[in-house]
């Protein structure tokens, strides 16, 4: 893994590597979000997942989220790595690291990042069950694009 702050990768994600990208002497806090593959969703057992991305655009959208965060919480540093390909239960799908001089911004910005990933980053998840498979729609359990488009300009918080 290189020093790119916003990456789509095919190999397992090393959490420490993502954290190291946002470390700094001026920072007083680093929050880390680790998204992992869950076995049961609404009672249905997942065998494994397959993630697919429009990689070049996905990395641009991750960088856009990083830009939004730096506008909303000046002084923070953000690094995001999302894995694609076949993932097994408990594998790490995404790691978001946010550092900040003070902890509150790091917590808030980290949650903002995962919510935005679920809105605008072109990555798709295919669930494989005992009895079938399906590409999932949006994880926010909202209607697809309620406003006719993703909230590209950033919302919430």
């Amino acid at each position: 893994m290189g020093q790119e702050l916003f990456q789509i990768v095919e190999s397992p994600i090393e959490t420490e590597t993502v954290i190291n990208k946002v470390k700094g002497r001026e920072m007083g806090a680093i929050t880390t979000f680790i998204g992992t593959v869950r076995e049961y969703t609404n009672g249905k057992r997942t065998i494994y997942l397959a993630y697919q991305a429009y990689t070049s655009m996905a990395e641009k959208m991750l960088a856009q989220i990083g830009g939004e965060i730096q506008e909303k919480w000046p002084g923070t540093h953000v690094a995001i790595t999302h894995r694609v390909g076949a993932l097994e239960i408990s594998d790490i799908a995404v790691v978001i690291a946010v550092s900040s001089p003070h902890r509150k911004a790091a917590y808030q910005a980290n949650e903002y990042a995962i919510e935005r990933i679920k809105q605008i980053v072109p990555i798709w998840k295919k669930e494989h069950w005992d009895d079938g498979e399906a590409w999932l729609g949006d994880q926010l359990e909202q209607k697809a694009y309620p406003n006719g488009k993703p909230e590209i300009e950033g919302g919430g918080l």
Partner: protein
Amino acid sequence: MITVLLFAQLQEEARTATLTINEDVLTVNQLKNQLINAYQLYQVNECMIAINEEYALDIDEIKPGDTVAVIPPVSGG
């Protein structure tokens, strides 16, 4: 010539990741209709279109040489 990238369910339905459309200029809306009429990709109705990796609106124009991606509701994270 316009290159159209397909992902996820649409890629499986079309049995290809890339379509080529021979049109000079068309709007996003016209492209969606063409994908539905010519390829029966009905899920296009609930998809966003990206032109050269930027989300586009239905009225935006697609020009020859553009790379267009059909983006189903995303489910990363």
